[in-house]
């Protein structure tokens, strides 16, 4: 089945998580993504040295880490040492045949190589280039270095997450990176669409923090409109109650319940077998429940504590009450709903054998993504150097000799 981005070539210089998330989303949609890795295989942000499955022999471990494949699904890979002029020439040759260049170095790196948008678009008219600095290439913090959780801190998101009597909390696992990656994929495709209408390429800068502060826009509006400083509030809701997470039978198992109306409250009462405490008239009406939510929570926790999360959820959903089991990764792997929707897919590569990846949250009905494993280190050197760039055997051998490229990771002597 044809895919949406067939015929689009992306030169991927990105490292760590945010950039690779963007380019793997483009690869899922059919783009030819060519990942450029340093000859020492280390500058991919460590993805090639992520943990290996238990029992796996360490032969070429850098081709085997599931975390690497997760972030580099469906890409091709070449190795370049961009400090060598031969490698720079190869990079520029590749850019000449490409539609998109994407990078997430700190802002000084690309200009230091002379790889500005002006220079690259001069040799590749219509080029779309995306840069993903942490805080932006301009402004007083342009030179600050930043990592995902540090950006969660500066975006305002961490201050608003967690309990009011506890510390600020970073949500999940590098939310900032995944969010910026998805935003960058969106940005690339809006630019591709615009180019299909006008023929013009462009440079896009996506500062990761700016992409994340977008997620809390309503708090900024509230703060300016009402002159106050919004505070984190755990799992509570500004008007709904009960609205919380409740303990279940086994250790560290939980279920959420959220009641949005008097009718839903009545349904919850019935589903709990109409306990006497719930008939208290102080719980009549949304305001009453909200004002007495702490004791309401204690009563409900007594009821959930003897059950499993799934049992509570299924009973409440059947009764028309909003409830969800707090699932962990093991639960999700076995969950019938995720399974029915094909959320996991088995992929394979020569050195890993079959293993499992998961897709993003969207499925296109006529051109659904088929996930693929990521590339081995330098796996596509021949495809790019000989195929796309038409280099001779001697030229490729020369590049290898001066360590401008390599077929296996090498350590360079410090200059």
């Amino acid at each position, binding site marked *: 089945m044809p895919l949406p981005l067939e015929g689009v070539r992306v030169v991927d210089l990105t490292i760590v998580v945010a950039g690779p998330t963007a380019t793997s989303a483009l690869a899922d949609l059919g783009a030819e993504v060519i990942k450029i890795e340093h000859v020492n295989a280390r500058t991919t942000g460590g993805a090639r040295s992520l943990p290996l499955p238990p029992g796996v022999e360490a032969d070429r471990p850098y081709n085997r880490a599931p975390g690497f494949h997760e972030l580099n699904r469906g890409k091709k890979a070449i190795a370049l040492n961009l400090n060598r002029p031969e490698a720079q020439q190869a990079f520029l040759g590749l850019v000449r045949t490409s539609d998109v260049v994407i990078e997430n170095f700190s802002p000084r790196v690309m200009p230091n190589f002379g790889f500005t948008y002006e220079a690259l678009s001069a040799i590749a008219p219509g080029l779309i280039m995306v840069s993903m600095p942490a805080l932006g290439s301009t402004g007083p913090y342009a030179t600050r270095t930043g990592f995902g959780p540090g950006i969660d801190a500066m975006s305002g998101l961490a201050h608003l997450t967690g309990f009011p009597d506890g510390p600020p909390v970073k949500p999940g696992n590098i939310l900032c990176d995944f969010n910026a990656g998805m935003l960058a994929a969106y940005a690339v495709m809006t*630019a591709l669409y615009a180019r299909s209408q006008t023929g013009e390429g462009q440079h896009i800068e996506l500062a990761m923090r700016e992409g994340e502060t977008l997620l809390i826009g309503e708090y900024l509006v509230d703060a300016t409109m009402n002159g106050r400083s919004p505070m984190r509030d755990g799992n509570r809701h500004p008007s709904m109650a009960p609205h919380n997470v409740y303990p279940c039978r086994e250790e560290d198992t939980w279920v959420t319940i959220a009641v949005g109306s008097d009718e839903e409250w009545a349904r919850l009462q019935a589903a709990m077998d109409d306990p006497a405490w719930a008939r208290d008239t102080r719980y009549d009406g949304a305001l009453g429940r909200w004002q007495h939510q702490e004791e309401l929570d204690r009563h409900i926790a007594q009821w959930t504590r003897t059950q499993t999360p799934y049992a509570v959820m299924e009973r409440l959903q059947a009764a028309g009450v909003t409830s969800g089991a707090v699932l962990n990764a093991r639960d999700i792997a076995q969950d019938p709903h995720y399974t029915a929707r094909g959320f996991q897919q088995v992929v394979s590569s020569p050195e890993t054998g079959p293993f499992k990846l998961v897709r993003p949250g*969207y499925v296109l009905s006529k051109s659904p993504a088929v996930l693929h494993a990521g590339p081995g280190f330098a796996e596509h050197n021949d495809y790019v150097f000989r195929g796309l760039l038409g280099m001779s055997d001697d030229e490729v051998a020369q590049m290898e000799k001066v360590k401008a490229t390599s077929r296996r990771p090498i350590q360079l002597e410090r200059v």
Partner: protein
Amino acid sequence: MAGALANLRVLELSQFLAAPFCGKLLAGAGADVIKVEPPATGEPSRAMGPFKDDLPHPETGAAHLFLNTGKRSITLDPSTERGRALLLRLVERADILVTDYTPQRLTNLGLDYASLEQINSRLIMAPISFFGQTGPYRDFQASELTGFAMSGYMYITGHPDREPVKAAGNIGQYEGGLQAAVGIMGALLYRNTHGVGQMVDVSITEALCFMTGSLVTWLNLGEVFKRVGNRLPSTNPRALYPSTFLPCKDGWVHAHHAPADFTLLAMLMEEPRLADPEIVAEPRGHADLMDELCLPWLSRYDKFEVVERAQELRHPFTEVLDIPEVLQDPQHLARNYIVEVDHPVAGPTRMPGAPFQAKGTPWRMARAPLLGEHNEAVYCHELGYSREELAPLRERGVI
């Protein structure tokens, strides 16, 4: 300069916040996004607080003002016969329909993709829901809290000694809306080549689960991520540390190691024990001790001083900013990221502007529309109804 998606027509039907966030991204990129709202009340997000001066009003909710920038608003009741007919006329002319009506509601209204595809084969329809358009939980009742619970996101957010906690606000729905926008763009580029539209089925719980990274880890490494507070998920004792939030004199900072240089960290914190060989050998294994050794120095300085000193020694510390601090942030001010948007009822407010700077196709920021503000423009000027024809429709609650 025109926006990237100029001339694209988008219809937005929403009952939650995922479709409005997706529509905001499309409107920002230049598409003509028409919100189709229930007459009289408007869409449910208009009833969401906080409001200006905490007085409920359909035009002054903070979420509404933020989510609906750059859009137009018409009123229409799709459950009436005339309303449905009007909506179908709009669908005929639309490129994209984004909605977070529940799957059941779409079916009940006859607005499922199979029906709309008959009217407009080029239509891209993106229904966003908590569980997607198929599967056993399709019709579960859900909210932001449910999405965080069932995606595995909540299980890994918070501290091990407390219950799981959701992320702030409505971020689960916004991530669903963002991933919908990615899928929509894929479908649009597919249509460029192949001439047909398609459905983009978006699940908020899947969107969030994808963002945990934890499922791939469990499936292939047999490790279940748990809540680790603000530290990194790996508990390998040799992993580098610190990477966590620590308290300082007036708040919190994110403390992060420089690449493996503990002498500098010891110098920064004026605490030589931070460079002890046992700590250097197993930093993550000594995380509690390292936190303790950092606290005395941190308690002497405010967060901006701590970060300034740390950054001077190339340690990527950052401040945990509260919202007034975000609004005053010098980097945001220098980059004009926060923009002021005036509104006839709510007055001027400040909010995030462009999420990315597209140098060739500028982002569009314009105030949220009043309820039904564009009825005449859409029904009269674009669909060709006369004002006289609209009056009875208004009286009967069709629009």
